């Protein structure tokens, strides 16, 4: 292996290979593809949240261009069943059947020569319904008198889980604080929305589906199940894909519907998600509710937490992650990186009349980090300790590694206390406290906040088999092929939609084979060319596919050495592999020369050459499949204007440990992007609903995303503690940036507002919520109202 950080190999911040086309506008996304006779599809979507369908009126002249559930009787609904005991499955119809369960649910599929004409057709459809009272709030959804979404269930709860460990210890607590904490609904908002082109290729008797997806192989499996045609007749291609963040980790009803339509009419059909559909119809994310109590001793020993967590799962269990992944994750990861003795957590995944929620970058970690880190700050305030001192006392320590925590999560490596020290130094907490005491000339309040997170990544079979969802990740493979002129093709089943894998996988191959990365081509996103894979999610690709690339290149290297040794007329003990050449006592022979011999002059090969040649598929398994634990500390200072509720981020420090960094620049990019999204969660993004279940954030003027001017200069510092379980010590880092910002920023705001007695417990922290919290605290202080039930502290 080459030296770390040198040349083009592991550790080098080489520029991204994919930028050449992407930055020049030469990428090809689903919407850029052109096909003869292409028809455009528009969906007529339900304007009702909860209703029985009485009839669907379609003008007779348009009937051949409109399809409804009755037309799709041969297609099975989407069923994403979890094997966890007590899970209640839902049938998600491809087009609404008998009943409507959320605003935006597709009711009819219309096709025409253009999207505008298809929408004209949709505008002429009349839907007659009997409206039903909707379940809009998840807590109401849990109650006995809530209407039922899925009548057969008897309630609205997909799944309940319960875990309790050593809660006796809480009797030793001197201090406890209880908080009711909410994270509001969001959307994932990738730059590119979803898009599907489906066509039937009669020559191949094959359905070809182009889709903006993170997981082409899983889409193929889902299509096979719903359409009941075998895998070998389906090819799914993800061309350039502009971000996913979980929104593209789902089998869409639209993918199934367009596949059926392409086969039905024998012409290529296309549907491009518009921004309104994206905001309201396909998936939302992040909606959690926590009633959480933290316990500690007066001298600052953290004894643990008890929690009742509710997740608003929306109307259906989405394929493949199911409606339970989010809540199941809450229960298992709420303890975060802390070592405490007592824990209890009950979770509810509740069906509501809203579109399904999907994992979003960080999945449940963002909500869990928000709940736990806010309670930790409340505990520290109650005890009168600095927030970082309180955390330092209960963080897992490096000498405990590897460490099994209270929920049996297996931490591989890391120095969490060191990361906290680095963050506190970098943000100059001491100086900030002095500034805080002296007050601001403009009347604003300054505050400091921090949050610590860990990110289990690349976790595999044992973890997901336990959840029993339709998709359980196994080993990961790579097909590596030397070309006749000495280039290298890598085929992996993961899919790169912003992760820079065309560069980083080439760097891994370069580290093993010494081939210049310009001559390494990554082939991905096409089920016809790549090994089966669950795709790109869970910050797994650099560990799993990166491991597979190295493993396949290892084998190629052995075969290249064998042929090279023969060509050099040397003994195997005399040769070595250096910089893309086999080097012997009397000279060297390059990969290019060896490849030429294998492909063009086989008569020159040794008799005992491996007939498998210079192409190999090899798989990778981690030392154990419990995952890598990347982690980090976010430390923030803010200034809050108590008259207007405005928040300015004054400084933002991130200490990040992603193990061995394959390309530090790419990792920084992931951290920046994730943090920008986390700032959105903290301060801006919210999908509100009215009491009838109408989504109110249906455009980007109602649903606010942070822009360049809302993201401050982020200062990123790195620790590099290698994972003992991955090939190069690398850890998954793709989701890390998005986890801690809501917690860190809200803690900073709460620190700033401490002198008012105001505390924010709901994301996003909008100016209005800040003003209301200050106003409420003033009224409590003046005796005009009682202390709110969502904040109880007892000593």
């Amino acid at each position: 292996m080459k030296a770390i950080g040198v040349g083009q190999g592991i550790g080098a911040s080489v520029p991204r290979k994919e930028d050449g086309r992407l930055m020049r506008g030469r990428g090809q996304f689903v919407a850029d593809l052109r096909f003869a006779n292409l028809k455009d599809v528009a969906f007529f979507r339900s304007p009702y949240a909860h209703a029985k369908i009485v009839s669907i009126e379609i003008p007779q002249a348009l009937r051949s261009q409109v399809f409804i559930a009755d037309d799709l009787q041969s297609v099975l609904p989407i069923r994403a069943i979890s094997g966890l005991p007590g899970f209640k499955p839902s049938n998600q119809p491809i087009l609404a059947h008998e009943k409507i369960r959320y605003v935006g649910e597709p009711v009819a599929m219309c096709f025409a020569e253009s999207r505008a004409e298809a929408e004209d057709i949709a505008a002429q459809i009349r839907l007659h319904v009997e409206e039903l009272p909707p379940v809009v709030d998840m807590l109401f959804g849990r109650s006995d008198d809530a209407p039922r979404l899925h009548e057969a269930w008897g309630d609205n709860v997909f799944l309940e889980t319960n875990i309790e460990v050593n809660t006796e210890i809480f009797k030793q607590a001197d201090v406890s604080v209880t908080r009711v904490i909410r994270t509001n609904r969001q959307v994932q908002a990738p730059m590119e929305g979803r898009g599907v082109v489906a066509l039937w290729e009669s020559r191949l008797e094959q359905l070809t589906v182009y889709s903006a997806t993170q997981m082409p192989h899983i889409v193929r499996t889902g299509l096979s199940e719903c359409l009941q045609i075998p895998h070998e007749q389906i090819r799914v291609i993800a061309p350039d894909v502009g971000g996913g963040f979980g929104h593209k980790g789902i089998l869409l009803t639209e993918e199934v519907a367009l596949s059926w339509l392409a086969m039905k009419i024998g012409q290529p059909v296309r549907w491009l998600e518009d921004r309104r559909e994206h905001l309201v119809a396909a998936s939302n994310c992040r909606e959690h509710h926590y009633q959480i109590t933290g316990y500690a001793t007066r001298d600052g020993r953290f004894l643990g937490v008890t929690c009742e967590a509710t997740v608003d799962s929306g109307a259906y269990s989405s394929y493949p992650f199911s409606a339970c992944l989010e809540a199941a994750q809450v229960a298992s990861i709420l303890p975060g990186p802390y070592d405490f003795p007592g824990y209890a957590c009950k979770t509810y995944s509740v069906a509501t009349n809203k579109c399904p929620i999907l994992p979003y970058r960080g999945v449940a970690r963002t909500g869990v980090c928000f709940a736990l880190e806010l309670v930790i700050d409340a505990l520290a305030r109650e005890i009168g300790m600095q927030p970082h001192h309180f955390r330092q006392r209960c963080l897992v320590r490096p000498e405990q590694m590897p460490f099994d925590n209270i929920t049996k999560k297996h931490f591989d490596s890391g120095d969490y206390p060191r990361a906290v020290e680095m963050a506190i130094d970098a943000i100059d907490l001491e100086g900030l406290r002095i500034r805080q005491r002296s007050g601001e000339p403009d009347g604003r309040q300054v505050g400091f906040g921090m949050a610590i997170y860990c990110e289990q990544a690349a976790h595999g079979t044992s973890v997901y088999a336990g959840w029993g969802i339709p998709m359980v990740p196994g080993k990961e493979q790579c097909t590596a092929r030397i070309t006749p002129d000495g280039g290298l093709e890598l085929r992996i089943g993961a899919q790169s939609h912003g992760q820079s894998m065309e560069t980083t996988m080439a760097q891994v191959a370069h580290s093993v084979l010494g081939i210049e990365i310009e001559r390494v081509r990554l082939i991905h996103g096409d089920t016809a060319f790549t090994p089966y894979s669950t795709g790109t999610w869970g910050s797994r690709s650099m560990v799993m596919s990166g491991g597979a690339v190295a493993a396949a290149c290892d084998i190629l290297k052995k075969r290249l050495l064998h042929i090279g040794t023969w060509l050099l007329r040397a003994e195997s003990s005399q040769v070595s592999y250096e910089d893309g050449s086999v080097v012997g006592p009397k000279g060297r022979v390059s990969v290019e020369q060896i490849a030429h011999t294998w492909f063009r002059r086989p008569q020159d090969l040794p008799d005992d050459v491996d007939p498998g040649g210079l192409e190999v598929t090899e798989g990778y398994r981690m030392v154990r499949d419990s995952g890598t634990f990347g982690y980090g500390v976010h430390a923030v200072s803010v200034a809050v204007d108590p008259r207007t509720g405005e928040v300015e981020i004054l400084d933002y420090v991130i200490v990040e440990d992603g193990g061995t960094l394959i390309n530090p620049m790419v990792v920084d990019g992931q951290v920046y992007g994730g943090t920008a999204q986390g700032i959105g969660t903290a301060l801006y993004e919210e999908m509100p609903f009215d009491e009838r279940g109408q989504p109110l954030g249906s455009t980007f003027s109602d649903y606010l995303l942070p822009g360049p001017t809302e993201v401050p200069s982020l200062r990123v510092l790195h620790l590099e503690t290698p994972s003992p379980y991955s090939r190069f010590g690398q850890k998954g880092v793709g989701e890390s940036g998005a986890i801690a910002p809501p917690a860190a920023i809200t803690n900073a705001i709460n620190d700033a507002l401490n002198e008012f007695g105001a505390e924010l417990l709901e994301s996003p922290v909008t100016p209005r919520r800040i003003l209301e919290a200050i106003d409420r605290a003033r009224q409590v202080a003046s005796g005009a109202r009682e202390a709110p039930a969502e904040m109880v502290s007892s000593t």
Partner: protein
Amino acid sequence: MKPAPFAYHQPTEIQQISAVLAQADQSSKILAGGQSLGPMLNLRLAQPGRLIDITRIPSLKTVEQSARGVILGACVTHANIEDGCVPGRIGEVLAEIARGIAFRAVRNRGTIGGSLAHADPSADWVTTLMALDAELGIRGSSGLRWRPLAGTMRGPFDIGLAADEWIESIRIPHIASSSVWSYAKLARKTGEFAHAMVALLHEPSKSTLRMVFGATEAAPVVINCADDLITGRDISGLTSLAEAQLRAAGLLDTLDNQVHLAVMQRTVLKAKQSRH
């Protein structure tokens, strides 16, 4: 989403416009920049039978000086104004306002006339031009009439035009060199519509002060008063007056009003700083 079908007219003469507007066979909408109308068409929230694109009429893109002020054609873009197409002190004031509208991409196409006709209560021009005492040149079948902007707007998204009328131009009085102009707004993010905005014109020569509160989800609230409320060190009298006027205008949310008044204080502070 894509717009519903509509007929498209692109007149080249001003006289053609009112005639087309007056045709009662189908509804018409004027397209001056399309930065609000475009998305509304795409979302099918607006489904006019006819779109009248007035951006190809050269006389609507001119800036002229007159004794009663500078006259801007309806199709002068925010970017034109930002880049200094209006000369003099008033030009500087207008350029500063334009610079704060949305993003440059929107300013490149969005027009002053289109913005006023749309009459979004959170838009910058409605509030600031009321403070500057601008008049609308409204053309209808019977010719051109001048109306003060402050008295014309009836409410949100209703600038007060008859069916055959459209905004041809905007006349903005010159500002005396002794006058003080100030403007501040509060938006949750750069380029978004504001949640509070206050424009202020103090004319010491007349001893008058005008303040306009925008982004109130209604027509802006205009306050005219004597300028002794701003010349002293203590502006609590001004704050009390403004609070009472906001309440009188039907704005009853205490926290919203707190924000409006905080922005007013910023506007006043800027005014006081610019004077020294």
